[in-house]
């Protein structure tokens, strides 16, 4: 069956390195790191106290006036995704109900869909605790009192802030996108899975344009506790936040939590041509698989599920390992996991692994969970368009047996033709996407 070609025509990035893709990419180029001591709540009681927070974020700048009141139905994850989607659609020069409320849209809403990956969204604990206070009897939670009167202290639409499909639903409403709609919830691989599925949706002809990606804020108390309990969070760099996240370094200390969203506009090539849209890159292949391991926290030692995903992406793209110049790994900065991913990359690329320029973004913007894979793919798209590879930081001493080249420098002379972004998550799911410089 004939597959349609799919191109990236818009990129929206909201991260600790800036609230648009130019600021973000310039930040990467300039060697900036978005990790600081967490400010949004008091973290002195937690073993990990650093994170990549987005400061001064106001989602109202990213929605039409008429939609601002819907803000009371939004958790931060939803706000971040809405902002990144708005940026991506504007970047793609699309007129939608959201970007140009007073004009005729330049798309057919029924042929345009949304696929935005999300996390299991943590509720606002202060808001809930304020209500729970009314369900206490002598200091203890009483189901009876909660059921009778306590729950009334929660706003009636409370649940809607935390349903993971609401990232996509709000975006479809704001921009009037009525086509295929999905909300993938596979933890840290959600964002890349969403872009991959959206790519396939267009390739098979079920939509002409998809708004795809993911978003999450992991800067909250529940995530700090969870990742601490799982033994995968950085604790030794609380006094040197900028150095805390060290993917593939021998001193890798664990995950640093972040927040952010990456959204791309994917388009059928013919559709993009008709409206003379600027093209960042072409998506050539996508692979999905799973790691298998004795537990759900550590990938298998050779990261075989990651190798499968990369090999499938290459096969679909009809590219061989030697064709790839840039690799954006998941690079979690958990030593065991980095080792497994390095092994997986070496197994997929063979002798060419040493020649790949590696760019691990989590040292800069932390682990943005459901947004992470989408942010990495957006990074690859911008790098291809600008033909620039930002420097990789916080990895002065990669263990030699990793067999990877972590040392390319700023403005290194590399012609980037093809890049791979790969991603995995606790639980096991893996994904990889091959993107190429657009060539008519």
């Amino acid at each position: 069956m004939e597959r349609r070609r799919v191109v990236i025509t818009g990129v929206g990035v909201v991260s600790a390195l800036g609230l648009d893709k130019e600021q973000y990419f310039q930040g990467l180029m300039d060697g900036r790191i978005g990790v600081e001591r967490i400010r949004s709540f008091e973290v002195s009681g937690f073993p990990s106290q650093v994170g990549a927070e987005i400061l001064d974020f106001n989602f109202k700048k990213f929605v039409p006036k008429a939609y601002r009141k819907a803000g009371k139905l939004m958790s931060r994850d939803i706000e971040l995704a809405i902002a990144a989607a708005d940026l991506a659609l504007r970047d793609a020069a699309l007129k939608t109900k959201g970007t140009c409320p007073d004009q005729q849209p330049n798309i057919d809403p029924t042929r345009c869909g949304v696929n935005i990956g999300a996390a299991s969204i943590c509720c606002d604990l202060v808001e809930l605790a304020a209500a729970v206070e009314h369900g206490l009897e002598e200091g203890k939670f009483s189901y009876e009192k909660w059921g009778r009167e306590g729950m009334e202290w929660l706003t009636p639409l409370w649940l809607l802030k935390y349903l993971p499909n609401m990232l996509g639903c709000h975006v479809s409403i704001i921009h009037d996108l009525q086509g295929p709609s999905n909300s993938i919830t596979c933890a840290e691989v959600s964002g890349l899975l969403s872009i991959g599925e959206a790519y396939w949706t267009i390739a098979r002809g079920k939509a002409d344009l998809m708004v795809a990606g993911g978003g999450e804020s992991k800067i909250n108390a529940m995530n700090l506790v969870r990742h601490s309990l799982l033994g995968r969070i950085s604790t030794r760099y609380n006094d040197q936040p900028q150095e805390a996240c060290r993917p593939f370094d021998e001193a890798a200390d664990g995950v640093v939590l972040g927040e952010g969203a990456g959204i791309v506009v994917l388009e059928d090539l013919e559709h993009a041509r008709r409206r003379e849209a600027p093209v960042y890159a072409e998506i050539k292949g996508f692979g999905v698989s799973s790691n298998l391991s004795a537990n759900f926290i550590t990938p298998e030692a050779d990261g075989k599920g990651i190798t499968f995903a990369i090999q499938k992406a290459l096969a679909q793209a009809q590219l061989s390992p030697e064709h790839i110049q840039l690799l954006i790994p998941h690079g979690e900065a958990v030593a065991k996991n980095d080792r497994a991913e390095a092994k997986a990359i070496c197994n997929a690329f063979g002798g060419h692994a040493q020649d790949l320029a590696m760019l691990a973004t989590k040292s800069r913007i932390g682990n943005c969970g459901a947004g992470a894979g989408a942010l990495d793919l957006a990074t690859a798209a911008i790098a291809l368009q600008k033909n620039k590879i930002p420097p990789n930081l916080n990895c002065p001493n990669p263990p030699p047996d990793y067999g990877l080249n972590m040392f390319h420098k700023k403005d290194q002379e590399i012609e980037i033709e093809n890049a791979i972004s790969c991603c995995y998550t606790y639980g096991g799911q893996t994904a990889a996407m091959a993107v190429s410089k657009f060539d008519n």
Partner: protein
Amino acid sequence: MGRRRIVITGMGAVTPLGHNVEELWRRVLAGESGVSATTTFEARTFPSRFSAEVRDFSHEAELPDGVNHIHEQTARHVGFMLSAALQAWRQAQLPIPLPEQGCGNSNGYVPAADQMGIYLGAGEGPVDFENFIMALTEGWQSESKDIDWRKWAKTAFAGMDAIRELEQEPNMSLSHLAQLFELRGPHFSCLTACAASTQAIGEATELIRDGQAQIMLAGGAHSMIHPLGVTGFNRLTALSVRNEDPPGASRPFDRDRDGFVLAEGAGTVILEELACARRRGVKILGEVVGYGSTADAFRVTDQHEDGRGGIAAVRLALQDAHMGVNDIDYINAHGTGTIENDSIETKVIKAVFGQRAYQIPISSVKSMLGHLIAAAGVVEFITCILAIRDQIIPPTINLQTPDAECDLDYVPNEARKAKVKTAMSNSFGFGGQNNTVILRKFEE
């Protein structure tokens, strides 16, 4: 070149009306209700005090001998999922990769592990309520109306447990199944609210058609029958509050309906490329022929008043199946029992099918099972497979008083013998995501 045909070769279910498919089917045809007083937590004073629970169930006994202990202690809905998946896997005669479990079918062909994948519409696990609430109450500062995070953290770290937290992640149903069956094909889990597992079936079908896999396990699992789940839906006033009559509370299309009834469970189907199923020599239970996915793009709180997105999803599914309105013999409705859904769904069916809408039997098994949220679609899909197999349509129970806005044939109260070759199943998710799938009796 024609596109690949996708057939169904296995099914499994754990529901309030039975822990396997045949028991579920027998009780659904008998018009039983699975709804009664909630027992999983103390709900006596909640606005809704009843639900459709899975009772007397333990998945551990069903796990194969020697299985990794990580499958023993799981979130409630993951346990349902493991059981439902094992039922489907065994029916499809697929091997469970443990040394002593041989390959089921006679000629021994099994696709490579990277040709077998999983697509779920699975829910999140319930929070570790006791420890979660303990941290909130210990940390809460009544005077400043804020949380003392040092106190909160101290309590949280003392009570919370790594695995209990991890098991709440919505990808964990998927993760357990991948480990159990050792699969390397495409793995996805989505959570498009009440439409999730219908979406999973549709997307899994597309993946096999595209050649990304030969076999996909598709389905869903969910349980929101926990204090915060019920609180959330009660605050939205989405749930029935007919506390004096729980079995009569889920009344889709009835004039006196007052909301849906929360249920829990899991369902799975094995979808397979026809050539693969033939080669393996397994029994074929039906064929998936159409899928449509759309968004209302209207409001997060309400469905579009004319059913715009629902109409589009049904039309796309028909188009995908190369079918017209005369080809559909039965519609398994989303039919939640809320005022809004049932009247809008009726409008959707009329808008697409015109006069023919009045001749198509339509039923909502939610009248008996309640609403399994993410798992609802797949369990309803399974009842469609069985309706085609046995040529009988499950009823909509509790349909006593007709509603002027709902004037179609909802197969009230009693199952009905009928000629069913093709069935359609609708799922409309909260937030406006709509999914429709069409399945057909398998013919060469």
